[in-house]
């Protein structure tokens, strides 16, 4: 299965989070917001800032905040 950094994905990309790396406050907050392995993620707008859909929520995030997230396309 091919993994990508979430920041490299383009508009419309739809996949599943495989890893969330980092120990800072931001990463901790992202985890609380639902950025956890296994969760659906969709790129609404790539770039900086980006708009991401994770589960049922949509967030506007800066590149440096999401650089630790890796995704993989869903099997189907």
């Amino acid at each position, binding site marked *: 299965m091919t993994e990508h950094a979430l920041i490299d994905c383009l508009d419309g990309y739809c996949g599943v989070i495989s890893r969330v790396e980092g120990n800072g406050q931001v990463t901790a907050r992202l985890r609380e917001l639902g950025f956890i392995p296994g969760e659906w993620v969709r790129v609404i707008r790539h770039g900086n800032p980006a708009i991401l859909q994770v589960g049922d929520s949509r*967030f506007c995030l*800066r590149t440096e905040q999401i650089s630790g997230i890796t995704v993989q396309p869903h099997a189907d």
Partner: protein
Amino acid sequence: MANPPSASSVELNTTLHRIALVGNPNTGKTSLFNALTGLNQRIGNYPGVTVEKKAGYFQAGQELVEIIDLPGTYSMAARSLDEAIVSNVLLRPAEPSEAIELIVAIVDASNLTRNLYLLSQLLEMGLPVVLVLNMIDLASIKGYTIYAEKLSDRLGIPVVPICANKRKGIEDVVTTIVEQLHTRVYPSRSLPVFSEEIQHSLNRLRDWGIENDCERHRAEWLRVFFDEGGYIEKQLVKEQGPAILEMVQKERARHTGKSLASIEAQTRYSWVTQILRDCISRPARPPKTKSDTIDRYLTHRVAGTVIFVLVMAVVFQAIYTWASPLMDWIEGGIGFLGEKTGPLFPDGAMRSLVMDGIFGGVGGVLVFLPQIAILFFFIAILEDCGYLPRAAYLMDRVLSFCGLSGKSCIPLLSSFACAVPGIMATRTIENKRDRLVTIMVAPLMSCSARLPVYLILIAAFIPQTSLLGGWLNLQGLTLLGCYLVGVLVAIPIAWLFKRNIAKDDQSIFIMELPMYKVPSLRNAFYYVYEQCREFIVRAGTIIFCVSVLVWALAYFPRSATIMEKYEDQRSQLSEAAYMSLHPLLVQLDSNRYADAQGMSALVETMVLDPQIAPLLEPVEDDAEAITPPEGLLESIQTAYFDYEEQLRSITNREDGELLRTSFLGRMGRLIEPVVLPLGWDWRIGMAVIASFPAREIVVATLGTILNVGAEADEESSSLRQALLEAKRDDGLPLFTIPIALSIMVFFALCCQCAATIAAMKRETHSWKWPVFAFAYMTGLAYVCAMLTYYVATWIGKGMV
């Protein structure tokens, strides 16, 4: 009752229950709060911090309930001051009487997974919890079915599905709250279970606490343990000393490998999955919704930006032009009341205080209301329908240049109309540091009150030269320059402040883009009402006091010698006018006028004369011309107008001299050495001091100083003429182009506005920031005005 919301509605045998409303941002928390409390709301402050405390009351049968609307939070792991407040209110009341009896947890039914994360933490607080499933309609649009009873059963707490926006289910919420207040079921059935090692660590911390006189609730130990460097940890260290940190670090060190934060998130989310199993039926992956379609356009770089510009144009147009007739009415109404009330007082200081000081001060406060109301109406609507964060997304790139985020966009743009609503609008910025920087630079945007100052000076001194074949003209360009000065200065200032002030705030910029929904007019109304009331109560008093103070400085000491001197002139004038008018009038109608002795008796008779009275009305330029009187009538009219004009000129000169010799005038002379480098003489310096309550006052003050009369405004040609002709004490012209430019630059950058200062004080809850803003802006304005003066003088010399 110590503290009843409204004495009439409260019976004496009721008890006051204190409950808290907690939930994620964008869950409709405010809608529910408004629906429960109506206008029985109080806005206060948590002691010692700048977080707003919103509390309201409602009565349910015998119970009087105080409900505290806590700031929206995603997690109890406090990463901002707002979030720290939530855990403080729930876990450690300052006094036993402030303890919370029950938590109302509101969640977005269309986004249950994420919302239940916070619930998992709330259940650990050891308080009864009522779960409110809001936006149940949005959930069904998404194709989600939630089995509330099953969920309630599994969680062991009551669950109430509602639709706060449409006011459906509010009654059920009230009934359930009252029931819970009586039965007090503590949630224990289903709590997230941490691994045994973590349980042991928590137990050891608890035991250590008991031994070391630091007994805390388990929920608090959880936060201390999991949140490295978090607010709760810092708070505890501050209270208990570093020993506790040592202990906590020792416990944390036992769990190497995975990060603690990730363990907590995994544990809680798997609890959520477990809880939701068969309690909700939903498509395997989140479905595409209408919001996706709308976002395709509204967040599009080109289409979205065009729409943003259009939306802002409407908002701007509204604050700029729709507000002005309302502002005129308010000013007119207050002026009318002042004129009606003034004569009830004896002529002199009392009357002037009532008319100019008090009514002037009240007018100075109320005149801002239309702009505040209109801006906040739009903000409420745009926020409620979900557009605001999209606009912030679009503008983020631009504003990140000076270290701010897209959220500062609307407050800064609004400040072009007026900094007061602009500063109040920074409340939508969660990040304290961004908010503070935005408040600090907002007054640099050229507001509408600066416009009269620019206009009069440009009209008087800048030639109407056409440039580029008539496409541009020098006056217009100068005006544009005045607006640009503020923006160009704001960029480096914001950048500098962002790096140097309020560095202790670590809150994170993560912006949620909620689903679009139809905005609620009712919530908009509450919001506007609340903001306006707050402004009048908190900022209004300061503006009012400053206005009265400046009135007093300009009014006193009112030398009797000067007044006598002008009284003499007036009686001389009357005598002369009588001598010339009386014979003419007798010639016209000897019966009527023969007995009239003295000018005042003569005027009284003239006013009653049907033949003369219409001629005495001042001729307005655009008024229907009355048939030009000939011969005798014409001479009478000319003589009378001549008399009136001279009388006005005496009064204007008297006002001018009284102002120059007032305390304010003395202050002007005192600061003359300071303003000399800007090319100003003491009169301009004095006008600047007088304009402290509001910049636009400078026009009227200049009018008075230059003996044109205080009614002078930016369109009056007599003021323009007076500006051109005014001479300094040494005979040089008072104003030149470099001086005019230096005044314009000064006003573009200075903070001469009591309302702005008051709004800053109100928003930052301290005098530190408004004083700082005033100091830095005045310093900046001074230096830039001086540079402008010297550069303009130098260029002027070069051209000659």
